């Protein structure tokens, strides 16, 4: 039989390290706790040494990476808390519950900080929905986010939807949450005060997701779909965690009430690795010793073993540190919200030889079952500097999928667009309306939503919450990813992703103030994956530094693979922007007949990594064979500043606005859209479809110009073209007229003509066609 620690996902050398930390052999309970805490998911052992390169400081940052969520000061004594997390592997096994518990987990991270969760975004990546199993996964994932998010009362205001065969067996489900708080409600997960109580709030503990983090989020993960449906077959898989949004809703209300009443010293959510994680992190961060009594933990099943109790990932639980004198008041509040509160331990005096001992006892005064320095669990997992192997120049990143033609050739000659109907055909194939997804999400709760999903380049929310009055400010949120670009050049691709996200919030008049990221990659034991990860972090660091956006948090999900192949590198970023003052809705995506279309920024005629190139490769452009368009971060920053001011002036901000704009009484901008996926072609068609108004495109001369996804570009639709051209010149932004709006078709000289009805049908019909009927096959 294999050694216990191997079965638990620990290597021989990790086992030796545990022995060294303890000065003895660990017992079964201790080994179980180490195995979950030292898992990739909890310890970031492969990525930690790289993450330090991300810039995380700014005068606004109150809490940076390392806590449950990042916290940013937005003035008026208000702060926002943001975080993003993945729930990829659980969603591959059970899409509904995987996604639902993903939402539940990230929401807990936010209210743990004292913030009321007011927005979710859900970047989703699956295989193409034409394949029934992918449709089944996507349908379940969306229903899971919908079922949980709507019911728990947090609106989902944005997200992404990316299809690629590399996610066939391994969908990516990232969930972002934003909360807002009065600054003085901020709490950190640091236990303190000898004699204080350790109080478990929320659900009973069951056998959910036992060993989930080590098994699901590690090399041992393998999706096996087979199963006996007609009996209660036992399975080696950890049991699926089931989300209960109703429990979480009550937990949110109870936790915020406890914080408002100053009844907790510290609080921490229970996520991956359950109690093992929450107890050790609270103790380690606070440098205190803690005793935990298993007898006091309410169990769903009476026959659970100590390792099962300590590593269970039962959902909707929180751990609070409470002064003994306050416990009666805590119970009072918990009773109101029907939340279970149990004292399961104490902060105890430190022993002289070990500063923050975490002891697990059968009961108070009972047998000691585990006795571990908390920091060795929480902070002292090995950090690996795994081997990094850059791919050979021009080598295929993915040998399984070979392009039917040399992508370099496609990238430069565009010859596959020999005939004009081809272009129209390609555009139709690139038009996908995610409305089918976001219309299943409550995106209006709290009546904050100024721009909902699908309306503008970023979601815009009034900065207010049930307990925080609107002061005239607003937030803009955008999540982005560009796996195609990252496959070709993870460093530049990631920088471009950051750039796009920042420009998206700028298009609503917001100044980018913070970013969180979720790094979804393949197997870190593959040198090339580590290279992708390291490059991606460098690209993010560089872009964030140059654009002055602090990275306040993140999450790493490794071992993502499908059919034995690592996924494309998929770093996801979410940027939050601040609108200092809003009195009018920002310009959104659309067109107004008889107005002028102006492109701000310059197009590089380069189709490398573009969506349209992908259409003409058998698989996808994972070849390392072409050069992505350039990204000039200095210029990009200038563009962001210009757009923020231009839009900001129109919607009521008075921050550094040029005189000419402030004086204008009529709106300078009627509509705005950034140029990204599908280039100018798709940007214009989306604008046309949204307001059912056509356009005559004049300034575009080639296929490359039409479909290029070079960064730093925005299209505006305006009544005042001269003014825009003049202002952009003044601010050093290249601009040109590319046509005018009107009619019932989008037409570009010699390139394509598409009528609105045709485009609209294709746009809205794609997802519903494949998601109407979904089976598990």
């Amino acid at each position, binding site marked *: 039989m294999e050694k216990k620690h191997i079965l638990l996902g620990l290597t021989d050398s990790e086992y030796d390290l545990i022995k060294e930390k303890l000065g003895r052999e660990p017992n079964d309970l201790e080994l179980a706790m180490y195995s979950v805490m030292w898992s990739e998911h909890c310890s970031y052992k492969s990525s930690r040494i790289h993450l330090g390169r991300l810039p995380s400081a700014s005068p606004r940052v109150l809490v940076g990476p390392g806590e449950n969520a990042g916290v940013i000061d937005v003035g008026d004594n208000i702060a926002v808390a943001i975080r993003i997390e993945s729930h990829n592997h659980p969603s591959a*096994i059970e899409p509904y519950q995987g996604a639902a518990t993903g939402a539940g987990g990230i929401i807990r991270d936010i209210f743990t900080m004292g913030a009321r969760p007011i927005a979710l975004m859900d970047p989703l990546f699956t295989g193409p929905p034409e394949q029934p199993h992918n449709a089944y996964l996507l349908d379940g994932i969306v229903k899971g986010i919908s079922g949980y998010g709507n019911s728990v009362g947090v609106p989902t205001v944005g997200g992404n939807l990316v299809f690629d065969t590399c996610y066939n067996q391994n969908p990516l489900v990232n969930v972002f949450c934003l909360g807002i708080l009065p600054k003085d409600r901020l709490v950190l997960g640091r236990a303190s005060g000898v004699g204080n109580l350790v109080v478990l709030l929320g659900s009973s503990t069951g056998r959910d997701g036992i060993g989930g983090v080590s098994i699901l989020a590690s090399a041992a993960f393998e999706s096996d779909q087979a199963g006996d449906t*007609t009996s209660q077959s036992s399975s080696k898989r950890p*049991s699926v965690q089931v989300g*209960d949004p*109703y429990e979480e809703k009550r937990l949110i209300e109870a936790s915020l009430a406890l914080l408002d009443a100053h009844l907790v010293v510290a609080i921490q959510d229970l996520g991956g690795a359950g109690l093992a994680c929450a107890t050790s992190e609270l103790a380690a961060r606070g440098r205190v010793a803690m005793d935990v009594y298993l007898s006091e933990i309410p169990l769903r099943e009476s026959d659970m073993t100590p390792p099962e109790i300590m590593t269970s990932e039962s959902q909707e639980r929180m751990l609070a540190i409470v002064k003994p004198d306050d416990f009666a008041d805590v119970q009072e509040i918990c009773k109101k919200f*029907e939340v279970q509160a149990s004292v399961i331990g104490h902060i105890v005096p430190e022993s002289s030889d070990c500063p923050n001992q975490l002891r697990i006892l059968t009961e108070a005064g009972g047998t000691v079952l585990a006795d571990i320095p908390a920091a060795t669990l929480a902070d002292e997992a090995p950090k690996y500097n795994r081997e990094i192997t850059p791919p050979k120049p021009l080598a295929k990143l993915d040998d399984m999928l070979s392009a039917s033609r040399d992508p370099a050739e496609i990238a430069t000659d565009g010859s596959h667009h020999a005939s004009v109907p081809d272009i129209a055909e390609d555009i139709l194939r690139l038009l996908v309306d995610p409305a089918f997804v976001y219309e299943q999400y409550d995106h209006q709760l709290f009546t904050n939503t100024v721009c909902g999903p699908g309306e503008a380049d970023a979601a815009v929310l009034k900065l207010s919450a049930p307990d925080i009055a609107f002061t005239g400010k607003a937030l803009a949120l955008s999540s982005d990813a560009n796996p195609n670009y990252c496959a070709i050049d993870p460093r530049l691709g990631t920088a471009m992703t950051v750039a796009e996200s920042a420009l998206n919030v700028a298009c609503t008049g917001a100044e980018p103030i913070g970013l969180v990221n979720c790094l979804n990659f393949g197997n870190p034991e593959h040198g090339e994956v580590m290279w992708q990860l390291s490059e991606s972090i460098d690209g993010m660091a560089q872009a964030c530094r140059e654009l002055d956006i602090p990275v306040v948090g993140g999450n790493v999900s490794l071992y993502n693979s499908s059919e034995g192949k690592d996924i494309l590198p998929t770093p996801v970023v979410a940027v939050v922007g601040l609108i200092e003052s809003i009195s009018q809705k920002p310009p959104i995506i659309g067109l107004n007949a008889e107005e002028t279309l102006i492109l701000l920024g310059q197009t590089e005629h380069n189709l490398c990594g573009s969506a349209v190139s992908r259409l003409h490769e058998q698989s996808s452009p994972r070849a390392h064979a072409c050069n992505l368009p350039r990204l000039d971060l200095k210029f990009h920053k200038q563009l962001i500043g210009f757009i923020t001011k231009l839009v900001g002036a129109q919607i009521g901000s008075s921050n550094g606005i040029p005189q000419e704009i402030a004086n204008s009484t009529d709106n300078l901008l009627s509509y705005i859209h950034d140029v990204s996926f599908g280039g100018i072609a798709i940007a214009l068609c989306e604008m046309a479809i949204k307001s059912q108004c056509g356009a005559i495109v004049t300034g575009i001369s080639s296929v490359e110009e039409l479909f290029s996804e070079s960064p730093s570009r925005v299209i505006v639709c305006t009544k005042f073209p001269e003014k825009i051209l003049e202002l952009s010149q003044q601010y050093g932004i290249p601009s040109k007229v590319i046509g005018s709006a009107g009619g019932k078709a989008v037409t570009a000289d010699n390139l394509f003509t598409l009528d609105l009805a045709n485009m609209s049908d294709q746009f809205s019909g794609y997802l519903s066609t494949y998601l109407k009927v979904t089976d598990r096959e």
Partner: protein
Amino acid sequence: MAEATLYLMTTQTTEEMNKMEYKVQVIIKPLDVIANPEGKAIERALSALSFTQANKVRVGKVVNFSISADTAEAAQKITEEICQKLLVNPVMEYSEILISQEAG
């Protein structure tokens, strides 16, 4: 879709002449180890209504349909396939199948 099905039934009438209609009931229950929040909520409501005698509440689904097949065994086989392909997710649920001959 419903129309399509009807149409098929009409055209297939001759070859389906010998088939019987079976009534199928599939009960789908959550596996014991899986949390069942709905059951928990109902249990809470029952206790608030002073039905304290009731506990261990678990909620599942029941799917009833008709199947046309040559024999009960064939109907059973098709139903098992339907469960496996569509109705039951084995990582969370198990099912019980009951087949009876259609009355009338």
